[in-house]
Each structure stands twice: as structure tokens, then as C-alpha cells.
């Protein structure tokens, strides 16, 4: 049987994946790159990023400050040499995006503007109004169209990594339109599949953020790193979870409780609205518990107030926020405060990868939100993730291209059998299964509710232990899931089942990793262990899959170079 075959295969068409694909081609123009994405690339969730991309762009700024801000923001769980390399590469990538046409907002002199952002000591967040992710994604996607070496497989869903002799040699993908399973072979594979926000009920993430790449790597034997580190953004719209950008506070917006008080003075007095996300989200929940939140039909909320900024400034720098307020809340943010509450937003944890995206499996790379290269530690600073996608997407692309140019060709023989086995697994497990009776929507919603309750902003031993039990029960129910749709054509119910399978897998690693980390660090706040414990936990958690058992955990020391851990106050 013939397979599509590439030198480098990128899984995921968001900012990291597209950047990786272009970097691979630019590193070696003879490299043939394939890209598999379950959606058209411009639908990828990068599109929803709003505030901007951090980089040292001004003479008064320095690499050292950006590195220190990031490491302190991470609550000292970042690997410091990774951060130090990142801050040097980020400005180059911002310029590269500029050359590719990104409509960065500009200062009056025509230079790329920067704005303040949470946890950053100076202005260093480059932005394209408040649609930075949208513009960056479309810029890099449209730019990718000029490279004939990049071949796309849009709307194809990867169900399995092909591993032969401990080496990754491609993927099995379900072509969504036809229902056909294909083996796509490659000398190297880059996972760039984004986050997993949909394991929670209340999330900023789009429907497609289901942890696919993390689950694929985990099943292939790669450890998932720091999965307990889940970011809750302070300002999501109640009910929908739609993100209200941190740039609203960067541009001077106030966060107010039901007494009209800028309550952050009790939590981050020196930073106020520009404190880091983990601390502000905890502050909001604490205020809610003290009775100082507003009560609404969709739970408690705070006011995010930009009325004092004026219409002109809002229209120039936050036009999308005004549009979201008008369309989704029925308010004009020029005249009305915005209702907001903490919402799952980003996954610091992910596929264990190094500074070049290299994972422990030969030929397998990871970049962007699905990876954990050691940049974000316990808490990512806002606007570091778009830059992360560029810097580490490019690094993985270059490295994968280089590896591919020396790697042995992939032999078709075992691939044929692996494709057959995988297609049979999905067909017999889902499409041909007649005895299923559990409603998929019910399992998914219960998982999301349990994750909100057990692995939210604050955690406890009891809550996490219960969550692990519940997830185990949901896994059993999932074995009896009923698929009503037997069509081969655009079967989104099958797709949702495969995604739910992945989500149940990664949820368990979050819960188990969180239970074991008996301290509070970054986004991981344990009510029963409220202090950071550097003696025991200045370490990354690594979760490995075991058949029919909870994940096995290992720990690995954090790399410290120039910044010794100190108390984290703002």
C-alpha cells in the first residue's frame, strides 16, 4: 500500500505548527513538509488570542528582566536556560512576523508598539489591537501558502502515532470528510496541537482544544510534564467563558468588587491589576467567598471597568472587546463595566520536550501549548505564549528538518499492519459497536463539571481524590458509549468520541499530578498545603501512562541558572 510520506510532518495548524512548518522549509528547502490539522489552519485556537506577544523591543528593556519576570511568574518552576534562550529569540520572531505582514499596532514614529501586561515589569507586549492571535495566525497561515514544499491535510484527525523500533515514523489519521484512515509517514513528527481547555466546563478555549497531542504522546510512552499547572485567567465572561483580554487591564482597566473597591490592593499592592494571573484569580475567588462578588444568573462575578479610558482609546486599542461586549453581553464597555470571573484558559503542562522540542522518542517533537519545554513552569505570564509558539515552533521545525535529512527512510512494511490495526480499533470500538448505551454528551459534561469542581483554582486532597475516582468511573462508562452516527462522511460524533477519549486520558494526569504535589506553587493552589515547598517540590512532575492503572509519577529537578528562588510577592 502507498502512503503519503514526508520528511517532516506537523500535527496541528495553529501558530506553533505553521511556524514549525515554515522553519523546516527555510532550514532546508529540499525538505518536504506535511501538515495534518483537524480544522482548516485559520480556525485554530491561536485565533482567539487577544492581548499580544512579549519580546524585548525597547532599549530600556533587557533580556535579563524579561527572563526574571518569566521565572518569577513561573513560581520558579521554569527551566531557566530555556527562559534565557527564549527571551533572546522572541524579538527576532516579532520582527519576522512583521516582515511577513503582521499588522502590529504602531507608535507614532512607525515602530511596533508595546503595551504593559501582567507580571511584566516593563512594557514589552507587542500587539495587533486586541486581535493579536487572529492577525498572527492569519499572517503566518497566508505566508505558509507561498511554500510549495508544504502540503496540507486539512480536516484530518490523528488517532495514533506510528512508533517503530522506538522511533516515531508518522501517524494514522482519520480523513474527516471521507471517514478513511490513512497512514502518513514521516522521518520526524512535530506535535503542535494546542491546549486541552475543553476538559473543563468553564473555559476560554474553543471546542477543538481537547488535548489531542498530549494524549497521543502519552499513549506512545512520553511523560506529560507538570500537568497540575492549569492556568485560570481572571477575566472570562460569565456563561460563555469568552476571554476578555488582560490588555484591558494593561491599558488601565480596573477590577472592582461589589463595594466598588479595587480589591487587588490586598493581594498584589505593587502591581494591582497588572499582577500575574494565578494570584489575581485566587484573589477573585477569595473575594467571592468573603461575599464581595456580584451575584448573577451565571454565578458570581467582578466588574472590569474601562469607562475612564474613553471611547477613543477603547476603539483604538480594544475594539474587539467593545464588539464582544456589545454582541455577547449586550453592553457598551465605553459606558458599562464588564462582568468577569476566573476561567480556565491555558495549560502550562504538556508533552515533555526540551528547548528544541525534542521528546524522549526519536523523531518526535512538540511545540506550543501542547508541549512543556520548561518555559512557563507553574504560571505563564500573559503574552508569553504567542511568543512561545513562534520561538519553539521555529526551533522544533529547524531541528526536525535537520534530523530528517540524516534519518533512515521509513519502511512501509510494519506501517501497513499498524494502519490496519488502528483502523480496526476505531471501527470496532466505535462505529460497529452495537451494545453501547451511555450518552457521550452526558459523560463529557460530567467530566467537565468534575474537573471544574476538583481541579479548579483551589484544590484539596479530598477534592482531587474524589475527582480521580469520578474520572475512573467516567472512563468505565466511556467503554460503553453509544455512537448514533454510523456515517463515514464528516462524522463529528465519532470525532467527538475520539476527542473525549483523549480528554479523559489527560484529565487523569492533571488530577493525579495535582494530588501528589503537596504544596502551593504557581497556579497549583492547595488549601491543605498553602505554602510553596522548595525543599520537596522544586521539581517537575512527569506522568507516565500505565495500562489499567493510574499514571506513574516521576520527578525531575528544575534547572536553575542565575535566579535563585525567592518569595514571590508583587
Amino acid at each position, binding site marked *: 500500500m502507498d502512503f503519503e510520506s514526508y520528511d517532516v510532518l506537523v500535527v496541528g495548524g495553529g501558530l506553533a505548527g505553521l511556524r514549525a512548518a515554515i522553519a523546516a522549509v527555510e532550514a532546508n528547502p529540499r525538505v518536504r513538509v506535511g501538515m495534518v490539522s483537524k480544522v*482548516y489552519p485559520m480556525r485554530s485556537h491561536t*485565533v482567539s488570542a487577544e492581548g499580544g506577544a512579549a519580546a524585548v523591543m525597547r532599549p530600556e528593556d533587557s533580556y535579563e528582566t524579561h527572563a526574571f519576570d518569566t521565572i518569577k511568574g513561573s513560581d520558579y518552576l521554569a527551566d531557566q536556560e530555556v527562559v534565557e534562550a527564549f527571551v533572546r529569540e522572541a524579538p527576532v520572531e516579532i520582527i519576522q512576523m512583521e516582515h511577513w505582514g503582521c499588522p502590529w499596532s504602531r507608535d507614532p514614529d512607525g515602530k511596533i508598539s508595546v503595551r504593559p501586561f501582567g507580571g511584566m515589569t516593563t512594557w514589552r507586549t507587542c500587539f495587533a489591537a486586541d486581535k493579536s492571535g487572529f492577525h498572527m495566525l*492569519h499572517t503566518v497561515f497566508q505566508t505558509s501558502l507561498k511554500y510549495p514544499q508544504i502540503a496540507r491535510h486539512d480536516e484530518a484527525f490523528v488517532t495514533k502515532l506510528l512508533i517503530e523500533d522506538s522511533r516515531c515514523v508518522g501517524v494514522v489519521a482519520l480523513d474527516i470528510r471521507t471517514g478513511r484512515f490513512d497512514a502518513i509517514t514521516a522521518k520526524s513528527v512535530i506535535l503542535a496541537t494546542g491546549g486541552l481547555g475543553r476538559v473543563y466546563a468553564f473555559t476560554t478555549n474553543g471546542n477543538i482544544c481537547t488535548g489531542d497531542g498530549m494524549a497521543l504522546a502519552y499513549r506512545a510512552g512520553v511523560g506529560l510534564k507538570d500537568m497540575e499547572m492549569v492556568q485560570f485567567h481572571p477575566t472570562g465572561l460569565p456563561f460563555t467563558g469568552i476571554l476578555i483580554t488582560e490588555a484591558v487591564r494593561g491599558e488601565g482597566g480596573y477590577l472592582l468588587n461589589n463595594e466598588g473597591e479595587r480589591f487587588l490592593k490586598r493581594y498584589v499592592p505593587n502591581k494591582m491589576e497588572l499582577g500575574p494571573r494565578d494570584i489575581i484569580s485566587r484573589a477573585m475567588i477569595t473575594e467571592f467567598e468573603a461575599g464581595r462578588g456580584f451575584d448573577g444568573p451565571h454565578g458570581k462575578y467582578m466588574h472590569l471597568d474601562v469607562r475612564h479610558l474613553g471611547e477613543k482609546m477603547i476603539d483604538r486599542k480594544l475594539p474587539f472587546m467593545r464588539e464582544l461586549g456589545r454582541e455577547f453581553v449586550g453592553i457598551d464597555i465605553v459606558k458599562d463595566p464588564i462582568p468577569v470571573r476566573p476561567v480556565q484558559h491555558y495549560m502550562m503542562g504538556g508533552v515533555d520536550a526540551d528547548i528544541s522540542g525534542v521528546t524522549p522518542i526519536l523523531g518526535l517533537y512538540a511545540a506550543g501549548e501542547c508541549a512543556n519545554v520548561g518555559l512557563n513552569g507553574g504560571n505563564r505570564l500573559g503574552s508569553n505564549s504567542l511568543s512561545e509558539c513562534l520561538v519553539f515552533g521555529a526551533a522544533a521545525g529547524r531541528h526536525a528538518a535537520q534530523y530528517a535529512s540524516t534519518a533512515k527512510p521509513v519502511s512501509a512494511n510494519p506501517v501497513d499492519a499498524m494502519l490496519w490495526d488502528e483502523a480496526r480499533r476505531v471501527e470496532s470500538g466505535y462505529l460497529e459497536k452495537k451494545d453501547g448505551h451511555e450518552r457521550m*454528551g452526558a459523560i463529557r459534561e460530567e467530566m467537565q463539571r468534575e474537573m471544574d469542581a476538583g481541579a479548579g483554582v483551589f484544590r484539596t486532597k479530598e477534592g482531587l481524590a474524589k475527582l480521580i475516582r469520578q474520572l475512573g468511573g467516567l472512563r468505565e462508562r466511556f467503554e460503553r458509549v453509544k455512537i448514533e452516527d454510523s*456515517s463515514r462522511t464528516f462524522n*463529528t460524533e465519532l470525532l467527538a468520541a475520539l476527542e473525549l477519549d483523549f480528554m479523559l486520558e489527560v484529565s487523569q494526569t492533571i488530577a493525579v499530578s495535582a494530588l501528589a504535589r503537596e504544596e502551593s506553587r504557581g497556579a497549583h493552589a492547595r488549601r491543605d498545603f498553602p505554602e510553596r515547598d522548595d525543599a520537596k517540590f522544586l521539581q517537575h512532575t512527569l506522568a507516565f501512562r500505565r495500562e489499567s492503572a493510574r499514571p506513574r509519577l516521576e520527578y525531575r529537578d528544575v534547572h536553575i541558572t542565575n535566579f535563585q528562588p525567592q518569595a514571590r510577592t508583587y
Partner: protein
Amino acid sequence: MPDKRITIRATRYDPDRDEKPRLQSYDIPFYDESMVVLDALNYIKSDIDGSLSYRWSCRMGICGSCGMMVNGTPKLTCNAFLRDYWPGAITVQPLNNFPLIRDLVIDMDDFMHKLKSIKPWIIRKQELPLGAGEHHQTNEQIDDFRQFSECINCMLCYAACPVYGLNNEFLGPAAIALARRYNLDSRDQGLKQRLPVIGDAEAIWECSFVGECSVVCPKGVDPARSQTSAEGISLAHAGELVDAQAPLLPICGARVHGAAAGDLAAVASL
């Protein structure tokens, strides 16, 4: 509102089984004033009929996946509110003017090819090396192309375009707007490379200036303006036309086509 309900009629079509599309009716609870048509579809899929197929992701009007015909008008279903239709029923159909794959899922390969054909990337005679830093560009220069850069490729304009409905060779509103986005970017020097495509007889000259594309655009892009202006810029840059403004009048596409076809040959040969 404990017992408020609403009727959703959705197109069902499975090419493996059905000869042609049909409408299926679902009666669902309208349990929250904030509910949108996409929430209604998700309710149906999760609680009534798991086989209903449609695309969606961001549910905040930026990814562009969830465009459908809602009571005959192209809309992003993530911001089409049930309260604006209730107590009436809502009919949800796939976007007009596209081949149908399944239920509410259209085939947009044609647009993906057209997008590539307009070379939607910065073209420079000489690339600036990265070490040379950024191009300077003022916010006013960005304003020249800003609105065209806001296109989310949601395809609502193609569904509304009467010309595309008759002739899918027509380049169409979004692709023309995106060509314009690059042509108007002060960093770009690719106009001449794009002219053969946007000046082609099946491109802007087919536009009949109905302006429906601009009416339905959820992002305030004005593709109709891009088409009138694109002609202007292509003709003006050709520098060989005595009366470049004449064809810009919003008149019927056939007349523009007839009047300007010869001139365009000159443009294309630049």
C-alpha cells in the same frame, strides 16, 4: 422562564444515504436568554441526536467556522441569538452557493484555492534581512488596509453573493478583499503579481455591486468597497488608461465587464 421552548429546523443530509437534503425539526428548551443558535445545535447534538453535523470552535465570532443560513440569512451561529427569533421557529441550513458535504457542513475547497491564487503574503522586490529590523509603518498606513485584514474567512459573503451563486469561477468578495489587504500594505510590492488574478475577467469585473457581501460581513469588512477600489487601483497602476474612474460607477457587472475587458488585457500584460 422554566418551560420556554423553541423549534429548530436543521438541514439533514448524508450523501451515503440521502438523495437530497431535508429539514428535520427539533423542539428544544430555551433555558437561557444568552443562548445562540450554536448552543441550540449543541443541545440537539448532545441530548437529542448525536449525528447532526456542523463545524464550530471558538464560539466568539473570530474562528469563522460556524457560518450557516439562519432563516435564510448567512450568519455566524455563535452570535445569532435565539431571543431575536423566539417565539418563531429557526431554520438552520448550510451556507448557500457551496457544495454540501453533510448536514450543515459545506465544501470550501474552492475558497482555499482562490485564497492561495491571490498570493496572500508580502511580496518584496528585495527581502529586508531580519537583522535590518522592522519596516516602519504608521497607524494611518495600517488604516489603509486594516478593514480588509479583519476577514475571518467565514464564507458568509460568498453565501450572500448573487454573482458567486451564478458563477463560482468568480473570485469572490473575501479573496478580493484579501488581495486588497496586501496591495494596500505599505510593506508590499506585489501588486503586479496579483493583478493578473484580480484583474481577470472572472475576478472583480464580475462583481455586480449589489453589496450583499458587505451587509452580511460579521467583521465590518466592506468587500464591495474593495472591489470597486481594486479596480481603481489596478487601473490606476496600469497607468495606461485615460479614464480610470469611469468603470468604478456602481453599475451592472456585465457592462463593466464589457467596457473594460480590453483595458484589462493591457493591465494583465504589465
